[in-house]
């Protein structure tokens, strides 16, 4: 047995194992919990990268629990055993990379950031569980398992959001809101699972995809899944939970929540592309998604401009940025049935949308971390109370500038690379879309200049005289993200060609996905 065949399970298992170990270790040495978590996640990260290399060179991987090879265990005919099965293609590993990086950085950042809190063992094990949940959602090839991992992630998130204190009103309220949202979505997902199982007796994505008839019931299932997953991804008009949740969670967790939302987004795309693909009315659904996107973009950014709380502001920007992903992918979907248009611009649009997912995770993560750094030193999230911090927090300032430039899509940062792909393609579909996207981008820029001004510029305030730069591990965490942002921004071609394009193709070419599992049927 080749160990490398087991990488998929190891990626998930190691954090899971660590999640159980952390409380135990915590009894002996509080400090070790963080170290252990970081260690576990760094192993995960390395493994994910290894797996990514393999997938991108060899092709999609399927991993069936308890069997040596997926193809052996697959019975012919359409009956599938209910068993846990990972099915990882270029898209899945693309998301996996994001999760791995974000959770690793989050853990490193937490080392000092969370130091003064009690209950660190619980914190770390929840953080690990959240990671596990995300990996699971991205890797699983099975509807029911998806539901299970979604629940794991949700529960861990709720607990983490309210971690700052169940007795503090706001975190508890935010946690509660998230819980309600999660429960509703879980329920709906379960419904949809039921519909599929009832119709086809199977739960495997690939298998369902190969037989899907697009019946009335399928439409209902789609009707359940799209809004619910969009809600978890924080799209307007179901975004009301994001500002609360994002702003109340500790900064590293907020960063991971962004990744979790994107995992839901991934699931949405997966359902639409891999499950239904051209069987559905691509143009209509595409437009629905585009409209989600436009609304999110515009409302998100206008709401953001008026915010006072730095993290709420960033949360609204997260909503707005999600819109870009919807826009790119939506346009791709809308022309899915039209090969000429697809080739001309559909694929580019999707590349933009998908690439933006990763970029967004990086820069928004970085921004939330800088917000955390400000909070760490000043004890406030209110922009009106900050000021002049560039005098004392030079690194944080630089990281903030990088993050802000990236989110505003300024060259040469990664946000520009993905937004450019979107602009350059969607205008061919409809020129107005590009115009709106570009204007939103400028509004984003303006909003961040304002934040930069209120928080960092101006005279040194007397109450922040003692403030100094954040500790080194936090700087390191932010530096990692900054490097990624700049690297992606400088060499977008490299990333697009090797990572994004395969991911997009794996979404578009339904057969490739199903084929991995079904053996080229």
């Amino acid at each position, binding site marked *: 047995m080749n160990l490398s065949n087991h990488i998929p399970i190891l990626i998930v298992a190691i954090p899971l194992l660590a999640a159980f170990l952390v409380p135990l270790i915590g009894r002996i040495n509080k400090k070790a919990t963080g170290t252990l978590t970081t260690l576990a996640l760094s192993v995960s990260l390395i493994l994910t990268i290894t797996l990514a290399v393999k997938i991108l060179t060899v092709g999609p991987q399927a991993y069936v629990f308890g069997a040596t090879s997926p193809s052996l265990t697959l019975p012919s005919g359409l009956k599938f055993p209910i068993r846990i099965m990972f099915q990882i293609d270029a898209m899945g590993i693309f998301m996996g990379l994001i999760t791995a990086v974000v959770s690793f950085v989050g853990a490193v950042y937490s080392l000092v950031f969370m130091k003064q809190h009690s209950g660190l063992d619980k914190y770390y094990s929840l953080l690990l569980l959240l990671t596990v949940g995300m990996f699971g959602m991205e890797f699983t090839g099975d509807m029911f398992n998806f539901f299970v991992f979604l629940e794991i992630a949700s529960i861990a998130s709720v607990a983490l959001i309210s971690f700052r204190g169940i007795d503090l009103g706001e975190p508890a309220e935010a946690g509660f809101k998230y819980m309600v949202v999660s429960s509703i979505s879980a329920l709906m997902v379960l419904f949809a699972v039921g519909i599929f199982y009832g119709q086809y007796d199977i739960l495997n994505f690939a298998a369902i995809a190969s037989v899907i008839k697009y019946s009335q019931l399928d439409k209902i299932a789609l009707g359940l899944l799209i809004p619910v997953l969009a809600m978890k991804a924080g799209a307007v008009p179901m975004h009301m939970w994001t500002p609360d949740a994002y702003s109340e969670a500790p900064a590293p967790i907020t960063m991971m929540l962004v990744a979790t939302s994107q995992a839901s987004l991934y699931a949405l795309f997966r359902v639409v592309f891999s499950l239904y693909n051209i069987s559905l009315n691509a143009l209509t659904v595409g437009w629905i998604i585009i409209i989600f996107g436009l609304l999110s973009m515009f409302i998100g950014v206008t709401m953001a401009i008026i915010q006072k709380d730095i993290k709420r502001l960033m949360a609204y920007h997260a909503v707005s940025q999600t819109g870009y992903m919807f826009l790119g992918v939506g346009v791709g979907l809308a022309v899915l049935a039209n090969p000429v248009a697809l080739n001309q611009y559909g694929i580019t649009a999707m590349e933009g949308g998908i690439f933006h997912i990763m970029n967004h995770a990086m820069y928004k993560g970085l921004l939330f971390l800088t917000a955390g750094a400000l909070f760490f030193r000043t004890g406030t999230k209110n922009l009106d109370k900050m000021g002049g911090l560039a*005098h004392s927090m030079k690194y944080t300032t630089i990281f903030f500038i990088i993050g802000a430039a990236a989110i505003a899509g300024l060259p040469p940062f990664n946000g520009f690379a993905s937004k450019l792909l979107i602009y*350059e393609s969607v205008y061919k579909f409809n020129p107005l879309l590009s115009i709106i996207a570009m204007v939103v981008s400028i509004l984003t820029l303006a909003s961040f200049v*304002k934040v*930069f001004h209120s928080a960092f510029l101006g005279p040194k305030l007397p109450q922040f005289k003692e403030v100094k730069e954040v500790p080194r591990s936090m700087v390191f965490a932010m530096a990692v993200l900054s490097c990624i942002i700049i690297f992606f921004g400088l060499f977008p071609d490299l990333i697009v060609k090797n990572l994004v394009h395969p991911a997009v193709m794996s979404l578009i070419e339904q057969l490739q996905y199903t084929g991995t599992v079904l053996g080229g049927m």
Partner: protein
Amino acid sequence: MTSISLFGILIKIIGAIVIAFLGVVIGLFYKGIDRKLAARMQARVGPPIRQPFMDFFKLMIKENIVPQNAVPWIFNGAPIMALVSSITILLYLPVGNIPPLLSGYGDIVLIIYLLTLPAIGMVVGGFASGSPYANVGAQREMVMMMSYELPLVTAVVALGWKLSQVYPQLNIFSLAVINARPIWGLVGPLGFIGAILLFITLAAVTPGELSKVPFDAPEAETELAGGILVEYSGRNLALFGLADAVKTVVMMSLTVALFFPYNISHLLALSGVFALIADVLFFLVKMFLVMFVEVSFVRIAFARLKIDQVSFAYWVPVAIIGLLGLMLIVLDTIIV
């Protein structure tokens, strides 16, 4: 961004330096012409044309005062950023029939973004100086930036869209491509009107981009004592001045490239180096004409608008003109 040979890189670096130098020189020269023309229209003799150069050299020897409230590295960095970004745009612009030095993916979008950078540099610098005037100025600059972006983007996207309909296989957002295919030849009568509207839109955006009267609310000398730039002195002020000069060149050549990319050499039956020179000269003349209409004349023939009026002007009338232009161009294509 793709790998190129070492020699190629070297050429590009040298080219970049040359272009930066030329851009600055031409920018200052045009600024001088602009001041001279404005003076003549106001019945004055006006400064000599090389005045901007002397201003620049003078500023370079002046003391550079960093206000107490400012964060020095941001305060000093802002003008550099403004200048570098404006120069970078130059590298993407074609001159006559000489293709741009850098080109590739979506230059024009890049240019739109880069155009915001000098403004951002000024805003950051204004905020960084910590004076109330600079603060109000910077806020106004931001409002302006948000306002003129919609019409600007509309004009550019509309042109690109039209081209993409005619030449689907080309990289439309490359300026070299746009430059080689004048819009006027591609459109029917409806589209022609549309294109004129788009030109008007761009012409209206230009003074805003360059913070010139009537859209100079951020620097409003009589209200804000120079607004954003109140606290700047010496070298930093000189750099902002250069950035402004270069930006003028950029906006002018952008207008020329988008709307008047015609060359003159084939009409004169020239070839080789002469054709090159003729075209470059012709290009400069076109730039001059555009500048005269869009900047020199407008800036002395109107009163300064208030910031809410500016914002309204861009969001409503100018944007509507732009969108109308877009609509006409789309209609033109669909009907034919």
